[in-house]
């Protein structure tokens, strides 16, 4: 697949801090690519560099092979969906969606194109409302429609789900994914939520302190993390004598398994999470591990004597 967006050794240094350093990545056409990391890791800065709201200190950004890092935002064929949506309060929903088309003077079938994209996000009947008259979820869809109607080469999304209440988030997440598949536009998605990133992305880059720690598919990044940071950011990790094992791979049994090494332990606490149960057990050297089991397999109680073991292939190894 051709590469639609490329960042080559991008850095953005302010006088007081280094926001990002040495960022290089390639996004393929039609891909759902995420930038994942904690607050302050530089993921939003990277997005803003691609959008054109900041200029890189060093490095190049190319869109379909053409350099764009010196172009202002209004000359780049990318569009941003902001975290707070940034809808124009003095315009109606339809006028917001038509804004970009009018700026480009593409007036010939503007009403039709606006209507079609509003139908795509199921807001066709709210065209004459003002942003203050619709709900948060609807505002997000208007922001999406406003950017999609311009058919950008890449759609940039800055934590678009974080302003929604948790109940809505899962539903909108699924809608977003199917929309992306349906429209086929390349998405560059910024989030600090690893569950979002894992469930939505084709590939993702895990960022920390201004740099990319690992880039790969969700499976790559979760099952074969290259650094301790990536391992603990993507999910929980049990550290046993320097070896990392994920809770769902940490087996807990009442009798010592034959033909395998195992560690004796005592159950300290059992946490009920609905479909899953977390069992915290203390090993004889004092360290604690958490095993995750389905609630259907939970026959344990606090103070039980148990044995902890795992498959060697589930061990996390770092460079």
């Amino acid at each position: 697949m051709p590469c639609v967006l490329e960042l080559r050794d991008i850095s953005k240094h302010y006088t007081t801090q280094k926001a990002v350093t040495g960022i290089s990545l390639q996004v393929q056409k039609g891909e759902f690519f995420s930038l994942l990391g904690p607050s302050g890791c530089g993921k939003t800065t990277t997005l803003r560099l691609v959008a054109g709201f900041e200029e890189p200190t060093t490095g190049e950004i190319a869109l379909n092979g053409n350099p764009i890092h010196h172009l202002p935002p209004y000359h780049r064929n990318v569009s941003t969906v902001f975290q707070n949506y940034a809808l124009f309060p003095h315009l109606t929903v339809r006028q917001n969606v038509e804004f970009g088309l009018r700026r480009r003077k593409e007036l010939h079938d503007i009403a039709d194109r606006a209507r079609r994209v509003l139908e795509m996000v199921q807001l066709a009947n709210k065209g004459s409302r003002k942003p203050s008259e619709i709900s948060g979820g609807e505002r997000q869809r208007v922001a999406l429609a406003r950017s999609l109607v311009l058919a950008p080469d890449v759609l940039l999304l800055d934590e678009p789900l974080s302003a929604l209440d948790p109940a809505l988030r899962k539903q909108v997440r699924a809608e977003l994914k199917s929309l992306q598949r349906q429209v086929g536009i390349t998405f560059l998605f910024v989030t600090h939520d690893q569950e979002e990133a894992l469930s939505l992305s084709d590939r993702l880059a895990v960022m920390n302190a201004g740099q990319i720690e690992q880039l790969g598919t969700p499976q790559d990044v979760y099952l074969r993390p290259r650094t301790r940071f990536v391992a603990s950011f993507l999910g929980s990790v049990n550290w046993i004598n320097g070896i990392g094992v994920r809770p769902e791979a940490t087996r807990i049994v009442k009798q010592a398994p034959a033909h395998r090494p195992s560690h004796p332990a005592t159950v300290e606490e059992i946490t009920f999470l609905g479909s899953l149960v977390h069992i915290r057990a203390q090993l004889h050297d004092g360290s604690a591990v958490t095993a995750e089991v389905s609630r259907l397999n939970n026959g344990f109680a606090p103070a039980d004597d148990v044995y902890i073991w795992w498959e060697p292939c589930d061990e996390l190894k770092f460079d």
Partner: protein
Amino acid sequence: MLLLFAAPLTVICFYSAMTRGPYGGFSLPWTLDSYGRLADSLYFAILLRSFWIAGVSTIFCLVLGFPLALFISRAGPRKNLYLTLVILPFWTSFLVRTYAWMFLLRDTGLINTVLQKTGLIHDPLPLLYNDGAVIVGLVYGFLPFTVLPLYAALERLDPNLLEAAADLGATPWHTLTRVVIPLCAPGIRAGTILVFIPCLGAYLTPDLLGGGKSVMVGNLVQNQFTSSRDWPFGAAISLTLMALVMLLLLLFMRGNSEEGLL
């Protein structure tokens, strides 16, 4: 509050319907002649000129005030300094400042002297004692009244909106005309009212900077209560002006009912 406002207003209403006394002041019989005199072309011209000067001054205040407010809102840490500088002239006497303009504009004033000494002109320019001088004085005096509301409106603007506009293809000019200015409408409205109404009633500025040549409604009213000693006529003019302004305000506000006052 009602007493302080209603009482003088009632008195003026009564005066306007009376006749000029033999030595000035007012006396019976009741009559509405004073209102009729306003239709005279002389007085009507003064009314017209007042609206014209007030209108032009308001427009200049907006056109000059907006870039200034924009500059201040982008000034970062120096914002407060600039705002203080805008308000500072209020700490000095308005009369003194108006005299200062006379000093600048008159034939032997600073501007003409400099232009003549540098050889750019031969005879002094008639910068004083005309409508233009009055407008200059009014704009100078009332500029802060547009700068401050416009600045407040600009500060309320979400910076993401500017980025969103650029992101969607708007050049800086487009962003200014399609996003910034429409969203500053409350500030523009406030500034317009705060400048236009006082300018209409101005009498000090047209008196000093206009000489006798640029008579505005304020001067007319002032004359009636001093040298002409025709209180009923003065009262009638005042009330008519007040009625006109309230009518304008109503129309102005009606067109923006959904956004509320200011």
